[in-house]
């Protein structure tokens, strides 16, 4: 027993004194390895998902590939290879801090508390939370969910808001989008809440899209940013300039058309004020 306690004490003191030492900056790391690693999703169409042909694609991935990767290659003066790793709401910050990935490019909402842990790029997409329901369900928005069974994604900002604003709603949290959708399809829950655009993606990919409806006003503001390790302003500058150039040159809007246009994966017209907001983030050269 005494030995056990000693072991426990050792464990605690080791855990308490770990310091994640890092000698190099992100750009130095990329230059040395020749690989730029991003953390992204596999089930969040159309931002990042595995498509029918088993390719890992999406709007966020395209943005990195066409706007940020070439800039890094140019800056480091060598060809850099892009590598993708899967990330999820509860793994993305540890993935960054442990150096497993260099950038989170998926559907991560920029928040003040997250900014205490990581740095964010400028906002590359803005949306808000809504509900996905079976067509004809009485749920019409956040005002009508009291006492109802609502699914949300674990570690998402939406779950947090529902818990605070409608504590009487029975919140069930699933680790990923497919499990939450399964629960909705089976009737385990009456609605599934997530960012409106993600629900639109889910609906478009469902076997029978017409069976589902997206309801309610946005009950939250979800600005998507790309996350990176804190206090690495050189790398952050490259990411931000890449995004700004994409918006300024119109490349961003081409990609938007490809994924969210009338013929895209998830038709979702760009609101004029969102477009204006994106353009206003671009600072002069």
């Amino acid at each position, binding site marked *: 027993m005494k030995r056990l306690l000693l072991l426990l004490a050792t464990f605690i003191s080791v855990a308490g004194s770990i*310091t*994640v030492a890092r000698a190099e900056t992100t750009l130095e790391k990329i230059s040395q390895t020749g690989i730029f690693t991003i953390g992204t999703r596999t089930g969040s169409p159309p931002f990042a998902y595995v498509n029918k042909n088993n390719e890992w694609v999406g709007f966020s991935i395209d943005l990195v590939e066409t706007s940020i990767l070439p800039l890094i290659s140019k800056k480091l003066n060598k060809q850099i290879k892009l590598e993708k790793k899967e990330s999820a709401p*509860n793994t993305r*910050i540890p993935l960054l801090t442990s150096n497993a990935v260099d950038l989170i490019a998926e559907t991560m909402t920029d*928040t003040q508390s997250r900014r205490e842990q990581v740095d964010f790029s400028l906002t590359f997409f803005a949306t808000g939370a809504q509900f996905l329901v079976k067509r004809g369900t009485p749920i019409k928005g956040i005002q009508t969910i009291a006492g109802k069974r609502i699914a949300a994604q674990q*570690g998402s900002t939406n779950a947090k808001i529902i818990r605070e604003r409608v504590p009487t709603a029975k919140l*069930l949290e699933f680790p990923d989008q497919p499990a939450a959708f399964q629960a909705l399809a*089976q009737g385990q829950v009456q609605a599934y809440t997530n960012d409106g655009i993600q629900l639109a993606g889910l609906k478009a990919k469902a076997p029978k899209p017409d069976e589902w409806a997206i309801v309610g006003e946005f009950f939250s503001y979800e600005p998507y940013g790309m996350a990176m390790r804190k206090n690495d302003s050189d790398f952050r500058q490259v990411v931000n300039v890449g995004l700004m150039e994409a918006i300024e040159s119109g490349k961003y809007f081409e990609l938007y058309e490809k994924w969210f246009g009338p013929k895209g994966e998830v038709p979702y017209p760009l609101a004029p004020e969102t477009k204006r907001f994106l353009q206003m983030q671009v600072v002069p050269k």
Partner: protein
Amino acid sequence: MTYNFDWSVLWRGQSGLWLLQGLVTTIEISVVAWVVAFTLGIFSGAVRTVSITPLRWLASFYVEFFRNVPLLVWMFFWYFGVPPLLPRPVQDWLLNHGAEFWAGMFALGVYHGARFSEVIRSGIQSIPRTQFEASVAMGLTTFQVYRLVILPIALRLIVPPATNESLNLLKNSSVALTISVAELTFQTRQIETYTARAIEALTAGTLIYLVLCVSIATIMARVERRYAIPGLIARVKPA
């Protein structure tokens, strides 16, 4: 640059309450699942050693079927697969009375029951054949032989591997978070969501599991000493 630890996130706000709630749920689901697992394990483990062939086959089928499919798959099976097969009123009742808890409990209990079964079978088979024969010679029925002689000895023999299985069951209860059971691991993730501090939250969870498991192991070590049959079970003096 170093990672700056901020352990105060663990007691600021609601974190402490969440950890406590998670701990309670983990204990609840594990205890109920353990009862199910142990009952199933004793029955199927004992049945696998009797000479009634159809019963033995049935028990073997249960063990091989349930222990050879990943627990995660069983979680989804009991949560997503089983409810639609039930009558509508039962489904509705379940959905409003913690369907995810019961599904998770069944998944854990039935899966670990199959594993307990093997532990118990090995306990029974380690008892010398002469014990069976002597019991039968005294006029006991097969059921009486098992209830009065074989199982009481077997259960004493298997305390160490059964402790091992029980600790596994407790730790495996964390898989239930995939079907939205708000147990301890789920709550550590919730703290991470609110504070964006994953390492602190995970360390808290780790320590709670560790303390819980070490306590159980200590209690079981006492049980083992207390119930050892003098002369029958050889013991090494504790260090």
